């Protein structure tokens, strides 16, 4: 899967799971500051990612993730 496709899927999950407006979701957007996702929201999207992509994401890997782009790259590296 191309990075672009992963981004589109991530965008879809953010809209679906957390009700975030799609125009706000860019590769540069910061999850907490720009998209107002709280720590519980991160848990929700991680679970959604795990189901959608059939992967496992460890707590340590998440510590590095601040922006949508970093999340997309982490997911892409696992596929």
């Amino acid at each position, binding site marked *: 899967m191309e990075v672009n496709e992963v981004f589109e899927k991530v965008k879809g999950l953010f809209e679906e799971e957390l009700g975030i407006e799609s125009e706000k979701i860019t590769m540069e957007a910061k999850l907490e500051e720009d998209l107002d996702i*709280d720590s*519980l929201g991160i*848990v*929700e999207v991680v*679970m*959604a990612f795990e189901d959608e992509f059939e992967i496992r994401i460890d707590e340590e890997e998440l510590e590095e993730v601040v922006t949508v782009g970093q999340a997309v790259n982490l997911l892409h590296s696992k596929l």
Partner: protein
Amino acid sequence: MKTVFVTGASRGIGKSIALELGKNYQVVVGFSNSQDKADEVVEEIKKLGGESLSVQLNIEDRNSVDKAFNLIEEAYKHVDILVNNAGITKDNILPRMKDDEWNDVIQTNLTGNFYTSQRAIKKMIKNKWGRLIFISSVVGTSGNQGQANYAASKAGLIGLSKSISKEVGSRNITSNVIAPGYIETDMTSFIDDENKENIIEQLSIKRMGMPEDIANMVSFLCKDESEYITGQVIPIDGGLTT
């Protein structure tokens, strides 16, 4: 239909909770040793037209808790309501209490409930609905001689439940503690008649509590109508702690 998981449900308060909730929910009867008794509870629920299954777990062991949840999720997808009821006692006065007596009680009564709650809550967050109900004890807030370990574990549940209630309240998940007083179960069967009379003397309601007294409150806390009650400790003790 929503799924309830009651730990320690083969007898006593847990059994009564399972039977009461069996009227409205799919009930998973958790047990550690008594498969026969757990299956009797399952049969009783089915006889009344309900849906139920029994699952073995050693609550003090995370792997065992994970296995149990995997089985439940295969059968019923996820747990909507978790009733953390399983508990043990290993009474001794403090100067004589052994490390094992302390550790076993804390591991089962407190850490075990951390394992089950953590496992259940992820799906509840996803579903944006859930109920956590901890069966503590009046001993958790008042203490009791010979039960430093048990009282500490039951007090620990209060901090656990209150913290959970703050973490996940925004996802329509409530977490509450029920603190039973003297309830007629195997755990209180060692109290002789004379002591029983003395206990009843201290109560406003002049009888020992019955497991059903607890089950009725659990049943209410499971309902949507209880959604504004969270982070609370609800004593059901015939007025013992007033």
